[in-house]
């Protein structure tokens, strides 16, 4: 093979205008929600595990992380609506074909459980019920942290749709990083041992998926490395790796190192979400991400038809 770069494939367009509409969503609201929802959901899972294994301080910190993330999520989601006053229409129907509908119902079930778990923990009222609510929130939390991958993948946005194989695992890893990062900042050193394992595992998942996605997403995969999206994704990888390394190697010894690692993990998770959001937007702006892969698909079908015929 010659080292020559392949020429840009030629394609026709209408005055170079985009075919797709850019997402109407604000990055602050929706990328912010991906991060906060991930933080909330995974924090509830951590809180439930901490409760069951007798780590009450860690459980409380994670419950605070869950409710904090949830609070931000709800405000961001309502704020991003074109008609915020009509947010309750989200619960007008239940549609499995709409990840946003599924997510609304998930949040409607998860929110009160996460809230009740924290309230019971802080006030000491109805502790057994609070524990049960916490376990329920932990299970639903895993759904809250990951359903957003289906929400993004089920769009015509090339980078998001073509990244559909990795997105669920990338989001799961990113959510685990955020939640273990938050808990590392607030928990006593004696109780953080499981978080260190979890942070390393979450980071490994996030980093491996974030490395694989640009390759498996075809032409649109290049948007994960371009411009602002590329800068965000690269910073995310550095922050996540630093955070995981800090938490995994030194996090058990020093509270300060654990907190700094936690901050880096949180930053890495947030940067990943903003990077993915930005890459999606980029992939709608240039018609080549629509035309070229679809042309290739048609050509492939023609070749297959020719072989069969």
């Amino acid at each position: 093979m010659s080292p020559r770069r392949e020429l840009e494939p030629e394609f026709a367009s209408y005055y170079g205008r985009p075919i797709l509409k850019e997402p109407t969503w604000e990055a602050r609201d929706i990328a912010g929600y991906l991060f906060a929802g991930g933080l909330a959901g995974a924090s509830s899972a951590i809180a439930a595990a901490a409760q069951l294994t007798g780590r009450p301080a860690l459980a409380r910190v994670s419950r605070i992380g869950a409710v904090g993330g949830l609070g931000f999520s709800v405000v961001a989601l309502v704020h991003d609506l074109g008609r915020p006053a009509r947010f309750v229409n989200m619960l007008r129907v239940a549609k499995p074909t709409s990840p946003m509908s599924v997510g609304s119902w998930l949040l409607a079930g998860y929110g009160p459980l996460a809230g009740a778990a924290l309230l019971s923990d802080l006030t000491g009222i109805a502790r057994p019920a609070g524990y049960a609510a916490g376990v329920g929130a932990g299970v639903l939390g895993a759904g809250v942290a990951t359903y957003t991958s289906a929400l993004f993948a089920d769009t015509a946005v090339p980078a998001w749709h073509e990244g559909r194989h990795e997105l669920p695992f990338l989001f799961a890893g990113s959510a685990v990083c955020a939640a273990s990062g938050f808990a590392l900042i607030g928990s006593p050193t004696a109780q953080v041992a499981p978080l260190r394992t979890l942070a390393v595992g979450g980071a490994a998942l996030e980093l491996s998926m974030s490395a694989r996605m640009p390759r498996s997403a075809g032409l649109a995969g290049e948007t994960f490395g371009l411009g602002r999206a590329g800068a965000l994704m690269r910073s995310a990888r550095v922050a996540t790796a630093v955070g995981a390394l800090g938490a995994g190697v030194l996090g058990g010894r020093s509270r300060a190192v654990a907190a700094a690692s936690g901050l880096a993990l949180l930053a890495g998770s947030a940067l990943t979400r903003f990077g993915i959001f930005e890459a999606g937007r980029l992939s709608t702006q240039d018609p080549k991400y629509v035309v070229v892969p679809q042309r290739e698909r048609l050509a492939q079908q023609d070749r297959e038809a020719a072989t069969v015929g």
Partner: protein
Amino acid sequence: MTKVDLGMPRMGFFTDTTVCIGCKACEVACKEWNAVPAKPLNLTGESFDNTSGLTADSWRHVAFIEKTVPAPGDDGAKDVKWLMSSDVCKHCTHAACLDVCPTGSLFRTEFGTVVVQQDICNGCGYCVSACPYGVIDQREDDGRVFKCTMCYDRIGDGGEPACAKACPTDSIQYGELDLLRDKASRRVAELHAQGLTDARLYGQSPDDGVGGTGAFFLLLDEPETYGLPPDPVVTTRDLPGMWRRTAVAAATLLAGVAVSFAGARR
């Protein structure tokens, strides 16, 4: 995929671009009838097109393409060939906008068309990112999404949509989709016989990625030349796989937490 029986004929648009003269009467009639807000004139320099695309405030859009072609004769001179086409919402058989709408605002009418119920839409914008044609759009000062309704009010009263009514050359034809598809196939055969081998139908096949469209077109060039995607798909087609992977990812998350806590030192 299953075919939904509407109990009455599915209605549609057949836009035959070979007879479009670029008068934009469809754009004007649509705006008039549907009370779609006007936009300040923006001179794009892109031939006669200053609408530029379908938006919340433009439900018909006439594209103008000046294609350079060899002039008649053998002297190698160039000439310009006009391509004009009135674009519109495709009213897909498998409509992504309708699939993903979380409020049920978007719905399938008894005519097989796809319409937004404006009193329900909460402006979440999911349909905008779901549409593989980039049709449906949010009106910024209003917050809700808008698109062609195929004049639901007019056709419900036995009339034809305003654009089809106003079209002076019958480039835009409204009618029963099955009949329009037959008519379009005959028209293509006729054009091929006349030597216009570039003539092709777009959106007419029920086997395409959206199950065929309720508004389909006879084009004289590749779809992308007109700003149309060459092989659009409804992404909800892949949703079962996405849900499966999401469930596996959620289970991985829970398993990871369980293993980390179970294996940790006290």
